[in-house]
C-alpha cells in the first residue's frame, strides 16, 4: 500500500476507467475523491454504484458535468439529470436490482463467476440472461462485476490500510473494496497501526492499494 496526496491518488485514474464508488444517496461516498476527479476533469468514465445520488452531491456531480459514459446502478430516481441524460440517449444506464448489484460486485471480488438469484425473474431484468433451475426452482444467472478502481470511503483507516466503517456509510464500500484492480481509500480518520482492534477491521489491509494522505472529511 502507498499513502498518496489526494491529487496523486486521483491522477492514477485514466480517462475511460471503470470506477466502483461507495455510497448510498451520497452517504458513504468519498466526496473529496469525487471533487478531485472533477477538478482533474477525467472523462468517459464508467461508474458502478448503488445510485447516482442527487444533483450537487457525490456521483451526482459527475453526472452533471457529463464525465460519465456509462452508469451501472440500482436507482437514479433522486437524480433527475441522470434520467434526463438517459432518456436523451446521452448516457448509457444499466439498471440492476440493488441486491443483485451488490452480489454481482461481491462475486467479482470473491472470485465467483456469478450467482443465482430469483430476483428479476419474469421482469425486464431477465432479458438476455440464462435461467437456471436448481431443485425445481428457477433462478437468473447474474455474472460477476469488477472494475479498474474502487473509490472507498472509510471511517477509520490505519497506515497499513485496515479499514472500518461507520453506521449507514458502510453500504457498498467494503464490497467494492474487494472487486477492483486498484483500491483508493479516503478515510475520515487515519490511525497509527495497532490501534484498531482486529475484530473492528472490516476491510483488511492487503486489499487497499492507495490511502489518501489527508483525512477525507
Amino acid at each position, binding site marked *: 500500500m502507498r499513502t498518496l496526496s489526494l491529487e496523486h491518488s486521483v491522477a492514477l485514474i485514466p480517462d475511460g476507467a471503470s470506477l466502483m464508488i461507495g455510497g*448510498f444517496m451520497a452517504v458513504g461516498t468519498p466526496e473529496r475523491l469525487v471533487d478531485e476527479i472533477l477538478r482533474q476533469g477525467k472523462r468517459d468514465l464508467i461508474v458502478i454504484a448503488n445510485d447516482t445520488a442527487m444533483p450537487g452531491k457525490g456521483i451526482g456531480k459527475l453526472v452533471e458535468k457529463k464525465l460519465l459514459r456509462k452508469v451501472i*446502478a440500482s436507482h437514479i430516481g433522486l437524480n433527475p439529470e441522470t434520467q434526463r441524460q438517459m432518456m436523451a440517449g446521452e448516457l448509457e444506464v444499466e439498471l440492476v436490482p440493488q441486491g443483485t448489484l*451488490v452480489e454481482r460486485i461481491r462475486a467479482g471480488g470473491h472470485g465467483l463467476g456469478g450467482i443465482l438469484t430469483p430476483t428479476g425473474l419474469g421482469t425486464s431484468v431477465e432479458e438476455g440472461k440464462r435461467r437456471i433451475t436448481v431443485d425445481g426452482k428457477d433462478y437468473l444467472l447474474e455474472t460477476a462485476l469488477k472494475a479498474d478502481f474502487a473509490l472507498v470511503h472509510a471511517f477509520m483507516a490505519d497506515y497499513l490500510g485496515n479499514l472500518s466503517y461507520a453506521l*449507514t456509510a*458502510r453500504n*457498498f464500500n467494503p*464490497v467494492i473494496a474487494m472487486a477492483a484492480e486498484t483500491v483508493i481509500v479516503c478515510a475520515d480518520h487515519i490511525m497509527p497501526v495497532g490501534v484498531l482492534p482486529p475484530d473492528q477491521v472490516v476491510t483488511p489491509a492487503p486489499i487497499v492499494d492507495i490511502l489518501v494522505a489527508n483525512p477525507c472529511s
Partner: protein
Amino acid sequence: MDPQTVIARRIARELRPGMLVNLGIGIPTLVAKYVPEGLPVFFQSENGLIGTGAPPEEGMAHPLLTDAAGRPVTALPGAATFDSALSFGLIRGGHLDLTVLGGLQVDQEGRLANWMIPGKMVPGMGGAMDLVTGAKRVIVAMQHTAKNAPKIVKSLTLPPTSARTVDLVVTELAVLAFRDGRANLLETGPGISVAEVVAATEAELTIAETVHEMTL
C-alpha cells in the same frame, strides 16, 4: 381522515411482535407512526440499518446515520448496522417478515408494477425487486385510483416488479388479499360500500361472505 392515514393505520395493524419490517418510501413510511404502543418491531432500512428510530432533534443528526433516502435518522437501543450485501441477504434470504411498498398497478392475480413508466419515469428498481421477490409477506400501500383511473387492473400495462404476487393491497377504499390467482375483497374503507370498491376496481373481485369495515 385522509387516504394516506387510513392506509398507514390499517397496515400498522398487520404488525406482529418481533417482526423484521421494511417500509418503502411514501405512504409505507407513515406506517411507522402508527405502530401500536409497546409492540416490539424491527424496522430495516435497506441502506444497512435495523433499529431505525425517529428523525433526530435539531442539532443531533449525524451525516453517516441516515435512511434509504439519505435523511438523518436515529438508532434505537439494540440497533445494528451492516453492509449492502448483508442487507439484501436479509431481504432475499427470507429473513424479512414483511415489506410494505408503494404501487403503480396491481393485477388480478396480485402481480405488482411499481418501478417504472416506460419513456416517462425510470427511477430504477432500487431494492423493490428484491423486496417483492424475497420478503415473507408483501403488502402494497397505495391509493385505490390515480386520477380516477383504477390501479387494480385486469392485466398490468406497466412492467412488473416481480413474478411473485403480493399478499395484501391496502388502499383508502379496501383491503384486498391475493391468493390462488384471485383478488379477494376482505374489508372496505371507512364509510365505503362494497359497490363503491367494485366500481373503482378494474380487476374482478371475489367478495368475502362478510366484508367488514376496516378497524383502524
